[in-house]
């Protein structure tokens, strides 16, 4: 297709859209809802995944030993833990290190001098003498249960602590949300395809005579179809561009709000940066928009435009 024909078809496609304003508007509105929902679900899923990853990066499992356990036994337990495939790494924390980690929390850090003095009082009498442990990072939080079971059965292990609930709940929530969003979005996309295909069908009906003349004059199939394909694709692009802009605005505002007004939450709840979210969301949404537009118009063209 020549550039001039491309431009001509593009213009005709836009004319079709303006001519069938009502249908075009309905299609675009549905697309906006689709892509908006898709965007919201994606943003939630990405953010929850981000939290899960952060939880995973935190210590998931802490293993304490029986009193009087020998160094060899501790090493053997360590080797066993490190040998398991779900384990990312396991660090040994001696009683001294445990106390050094815990004491500042215990004495508070408002008066460092006093804290230091108090700590020195315990220098010869470590209250956490039995608190030597392994701190384990997992590769995948969902495998935490099986690890805990395996370690609990070992000889010399007194207790295994794990913060299973948070990661578990999040993982489950995320997969549930994933399924739900896939379902809703597929349904909406089907509606969007249907509406766009109807819009294009109206366009074809309006231009029936013109199409007949084109065929007799010797227009190629592509030339006859191109304006209707453009029509669908433009509807798809507009219908995905607008919700992306809205999403970007809302997301930015929400991020700002969490950082400023709810500063105390910033340690707990942080949003994935909008740059990171929209780096994926923009191309995927635009692609989906164009795809839906193209699919919608092709369905109609195949049905109503036998050239």
């Amino acid at each position, binding site marked *: 297709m*020549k550039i001039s024909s491309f431009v001509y078809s593009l213009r005709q496609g836009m004319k079709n859209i303006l001519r069938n304003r009502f249908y075009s508007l309905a299609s675009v509105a549905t697309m906006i809802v689709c892509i908006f929902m898709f965007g919201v679900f994606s943003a939630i899923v990405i953010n929850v995944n981000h939290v899960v990853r952060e939880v995973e990066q935190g210590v998931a499992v802490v293993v304490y030993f029986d009193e009087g356990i020998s160094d060899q036994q501790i090493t053997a337990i360590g080797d066993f833990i490190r040998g398991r495939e779900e384990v990312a790494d396991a660090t040994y924390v001696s009683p001294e290190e445990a106390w050094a980690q815990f004491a500042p929390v215990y004495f508070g850090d408002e008066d460092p001098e006093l804290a230091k003095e108090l700590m020195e009082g315990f220098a010869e009498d470590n209250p956490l003498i039995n608190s030597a442990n392994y701190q384990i990072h997992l590769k995948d939080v969902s495998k935490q249960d099986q690890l805990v079971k395996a370690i609990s059965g070992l000889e010399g292990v007194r207790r295994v602590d794990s913060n299973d609930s948070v990661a578990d709940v999040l993982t489950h929530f995320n997969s549930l949300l994933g399924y739900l969003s896939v379902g809703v979005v597929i349904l909406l996309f089907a509606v969007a395809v249907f509406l766009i295909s109807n819009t294009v069908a109206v366009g074809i009906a309006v231009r029936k005579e013109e199409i007949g*003349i084109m065929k007799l004059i*010797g*227009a*190629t*199939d592509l030339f006859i179809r191109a304006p209707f394909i453009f029509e669908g694709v433009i509807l798809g692009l507009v219908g995905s561009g607008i919700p992306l802009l809205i999403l970007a605005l809302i997301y930015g505002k929400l991020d700002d709000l969490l950082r400023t007004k709810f500063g105390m939450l910033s340690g707990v709840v942080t949003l994935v940066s909008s740059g990171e979210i929209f780096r994926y969301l923009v191309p995927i949404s635009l692609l989906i928009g164009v795809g839906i537009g193209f699919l919608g118009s092709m369905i109609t063209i195949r049905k109503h435009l036998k050239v």
Partner: protein
Amino acid sequence: MIHMDNVSKAYSTGNPAVNDINLHIEKGEFVFIIGPSGAGKTTLFKLLLKELEPTSGTITVAGQELNSMKRRQIPKFRRNIGVVFQDFRLLKDRNLYENIAFAQRVVETSSRKIRRDVPQALSSVGLAERYKALPNELSGGEQQRIAIARALVNDPQLIMADEPTGNLDAQNAWEIMKLLEEINEKGTTVLVVTHNREIVDAMKKRVITLEDGKIISDEKEGGYSHED
């Protein structure tokens, strides 16, 4: 230019619309096809444009064998033929210039050539000054002139007109026929399907008469008169 050998076209019901026709029209001829309604004129017209496939027989138009022609080759083939209809079939929402340019645009002519050819086509039918007018601002005769200009603008080897004077008064009908005759004199083959008795009788051109799907007469300087 047109060769039909033993061509028949049967629809699923009834007698064949075209029945074993042999027809040969040479380059540069002016030919009328006449006959009563249901004689098979429209079917013949559509067969020549490859809008319909013959049930049997072979058709060659402008040197191209239609039977073996692939679907994607049809558009290029049709560019050899300018088609004119009884109801003009102009695009009502576009002015005269755009109507003619449309014919060039759909065959992907360059914009420069369009700018050069359209004014020429408009003046060849005597409507150069009215290029901005919309079709419904024109008389029937003028609209048909524009339709002819549109058919001519891509330099076809053959002009096929289906009842081109059907919607026109006698004066306008004559003018359209004169225009087609002028086009023919410049070398374009012209095929006119018509009911217009006076014109056919007066123009003394080759006349092929169809009846019940068969050619019942083919006269060099014929007319309707023998039917009476």
